[in-house]
């Protein structure tokens, strides 16, 4: 049988530590698990000119659905024309993002939250659509020119 002789100061210190551990408030539960999370949707826009050149340093203004006049967030695009932001998901609806650089730019409307789902999107037409539309306008102009030329001759 071993008898451990402790000094009385050590015994008091051990009792104090034990009491502190018992009464310390803790968030740990014996079996249940409590996990909290925050959902943030990050939207990234890429702004380029028609020629494909990025709108480096373009100024960006983000407008919330319930306040289309005061910018909810302002910032600027990076060298590649990229700008990211996390909209407030508690304010569902159409978020407007305006990009401008030296008087050039545009606005894109992005659906966020609610019944809408955020997906990839872009403004403008494809090169094929633009080609077809241009051909139609040129043909219309040429047709007009030919029509009036013929009228003049007759």
């Amino acid at each position, binding site marked *: 049988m071993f008898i451990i002789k402790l000094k009385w100061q050590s015994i008091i210190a051990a009792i104090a530590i034990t009491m502190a551990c018992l009464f310390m408030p803790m968030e740990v539960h014996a079996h249940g698990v409590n996990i909290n999370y925050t959902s943030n949707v990050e939207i990234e826009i890429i702004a380029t*000119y*028609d*020629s494909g*050149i990025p709108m*480096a*340093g373009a*100024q960006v*203004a983000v407008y919330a659905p319930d306040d289309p006049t*005061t*910018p909810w967030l*302002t910032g*600027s695009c990076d060298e590649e024309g990229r700008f990211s932001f996390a909209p407030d998901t508690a304010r569902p609806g159409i978020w407007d993002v*305006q990009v*401008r*650089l*030296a*008087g*050039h*730019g*545009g*606005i894109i409307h992005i659906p966020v939250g609610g019944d809408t789902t955020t997906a990839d999107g872009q*403004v*403008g*037409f494809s090169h094929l659509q*633009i080609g077809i*539309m*241009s051909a139609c*306008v*040129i043909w219309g*102009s*040429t047709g*007009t*020119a*030919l029509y*009036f*030329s013929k*009228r*003049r001759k007759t």
Partner: protein
Amino acid sequence: MHIPDGILPLSVTGSGYAATTLTTWYSIRKIRQKEDPRQDIPKASLLTAAFFIASWIHIPVPPTSVHLVLNGLLGALLGYYAFPAILIGLFFQAIMFGHGGLTTLGVNAMIMGLPALIAHHIFRLRKWRNSDGQKKTGAFGFLSGVVATGISVAMFVIILLTNLPAEINIVSERTAVYALAIAHIPVIFIEGTITALVTVFIRKVRPGILDGV
């Protein structure tokens, strides 16, 4: 040089439409005073198509790229037909290419159309002292192109700088506008050269086209 939607306040876009309406009315009035107002419609129609396509001809001026305007050429060759031609071209550019916008159509028409009318009057000066030589045609053609594009750039810069919204970085935007204006300096001379070459070519091949202007 097309100002898109959402850049200018409503008062400016409204004023642009008012000025464009007035200028269009005056141009049509001048056209109707001609002996045969329909005579130049084929020429105006083809040059409208050229103006429409010009905004897709990009000229790389690092770090950006600029495009041709051709308003000096239209002014020199069409006279008062130039303004309605540019207005129609801008309308198609806005709805098809997204160049400019429908709310800013009036402002853009003034930026590009008014200098075209000035170019027309400059080009008419070639007939001064009843001589219309090839050198004079080329020189005044060049001057028409340079002046028209130069005035367009100046108008674009002034309109933008006097209507900067408070919520943007003013210094950054102003710097970008100046940089864009500087990038247009080569374009001004390219436009002048194109106008000179085309007018001289037409004078050689079909001088009758230049009779009415």
